[in-house]
């Protein structure tokens, strides 16, 4: 695949974290050409993690979630096209459709993110929400302020967990429904997943695991949730957090390979002069020998920068993108962090603190290698082991570091 370093213009589709960090990287690296930033939300780029935490709780207002102070944002000198949606792409002719109008691109960076998976049959039913955008967060906040009798959170992943935590802060009774027997069991394994689940129970959440949702009941407004075990939970507010789907609908017939995201090579190149980053990008991470798509905040930052630089390099100069995935989540008064790629059947060792005090760090290992570190209120330890993960440390080296 050929790519030119003599670029005059770059179009970035997607004006959230990955897209903004891409634009910042281009300018920092001295790119003086036009940068066109296309985003379907009519807002300057904002930060999403507070949407389930500080903004939802009312601790912060909208002015606090900007991703870039106005003067710094202006200094990027972007051709800013907000409230505009990319509707089509043809990589063979180097053309892009924006709201149906065709334009040419020189270099293109795709960062269109993902959207929430929804429960079937809930369209148009008031009181049922997903959480992805600022408008979603403000709507749920309004509903929480209205004093609902009970909130049902569907899905005990990290978004669901944060929403439950914030709802508890409003003094609203919360039921959390999770299809897996142990929340996050597939990520953290059952032992550690159970501890994370217990924190919800500690905080008064009615946690129902190993049950699905059969139906969200109500005529115009939600009235109850019927579970797969026939239990019915009365609820006037339901928040669904059951994962996300990459936004690739506009890439049909583009010439790109779309398969649960935009498939890239190991350098984040998807086609000549086209790269992808953030929630929408799938690429083979040589560190793991695995094709992955990572929906973490930190990945959007890193991959946005990497994909931007990739556009400025020749194939010979390009380097693979080899991150150790990392994310954090804040729930109640606990901070959880995970770095690496654990599997549920990995060996697990407690390296700091204890499960009982809800303050601990555990490491995961497989086939003689350190694979991950997970911490609850243990940021220092998590980052130390993340350093070991980046070096490709062995399991025994990690245990030795821990002093075991």
């Amino acid at each position, binding site marked *: 695949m050929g790519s030119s370093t003599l670029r005059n213009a770059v179009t970035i589709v997607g004006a959230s974290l990955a897209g903004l*960090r891409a634009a*910042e990287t281009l300018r*920092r690296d001295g790119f003086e050409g036009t940068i066109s930033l296309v985003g379907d939300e009519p807002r300057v780029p904002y*930060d999403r*993690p507070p949407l389930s935490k500080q903004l939802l709780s009312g601790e912060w207002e909208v002015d606090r979630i900007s*991703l870039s102070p106005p003067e710094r944002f202006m200094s990027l000198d972007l051709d800013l096209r907000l409230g505009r949606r990319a509707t089509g792409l043809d990589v063979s002719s180097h053309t892009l459709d924006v709201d149906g109008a065709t334009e040419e691109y020189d270099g293109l960076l795709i960062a269109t993110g993902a959207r929430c998976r929804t429960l079937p049959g809930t369209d148009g039913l008031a009181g049922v929400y997903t959480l992805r955008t600022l408008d979603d967060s403000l709507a749920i906040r309004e509903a929480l302020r209205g004093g609902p009798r009970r909130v049902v959170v569907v899905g005990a992943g990290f978004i669901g967990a944060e929403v439950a935590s914030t709802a508890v802060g409003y003094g609203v009774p919360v039921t959390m429904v999770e299809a897996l027997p142990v929340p996050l069991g597939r990520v953290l394994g059952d032992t550690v997943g159970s501890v994370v689940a217990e924190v919800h129970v500690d905080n008064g959440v009615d946690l129902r695991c190993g049950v699905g949702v059969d139906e969200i009941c109500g005529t115009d407004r939600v009235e109850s949730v019927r579970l797969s075990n026939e239990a019915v939970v009365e609820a006037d507010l339901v928040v669904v957090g059951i994962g996300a789907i990459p936004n690739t609908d506009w890439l049909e017939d583009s010439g790109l390979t779309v398969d649960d995201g935009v498939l890239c090579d190991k350098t984040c190149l998807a086609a000549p002069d086209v790269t992808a980053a953030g929630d929408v990008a799938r690429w083979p991470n040589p560190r793991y020998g695995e094709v992955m798509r990572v929906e973490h*905040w*930190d990945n959007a*930052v*890193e991959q946005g*920068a990497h994909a931007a630089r990739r556009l400025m390099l020749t194939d010979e100069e390009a380097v693979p993108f080899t991150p150790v995935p*990392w994310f*954090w989540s*804040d729930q109640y008064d606990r*901070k959880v*962090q995970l770095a690496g790629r654990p599997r549920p059947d990995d060996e697990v060792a407690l390296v700091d603190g204890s499960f009982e005090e809800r303050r601990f760090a555990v490491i995961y290992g497989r086939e003689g290698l350190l694979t991950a570190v997970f911490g609850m*209120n243990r*940021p*220092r330890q*998590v*980052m*130390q082991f*993340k*350093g070991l993960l980046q070096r490709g440390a062995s399991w025994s080296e990690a245990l030795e570091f821990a002093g075991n």
Partner: protein
Amino acid sequence: MHIVVDYDLCESNAICMQIAPDVFEVRDDDFLYLLDETPGEDRRAAMDEAAQRCPKQAIRIED
């Protein structure tokens, strides 16, 4: 180069410590300590990265 941390924003994710342990340290009390408020110019790339990768955007570089 002057490093400023907004401690009202900082949530001790410790990403900065991993990038530049000579400048940032999250101690056992889970608080961030700034070890060097005026790192040398040779540390600028690392400081830029720390500021950009801070999930709370709590690190500012003042020239």
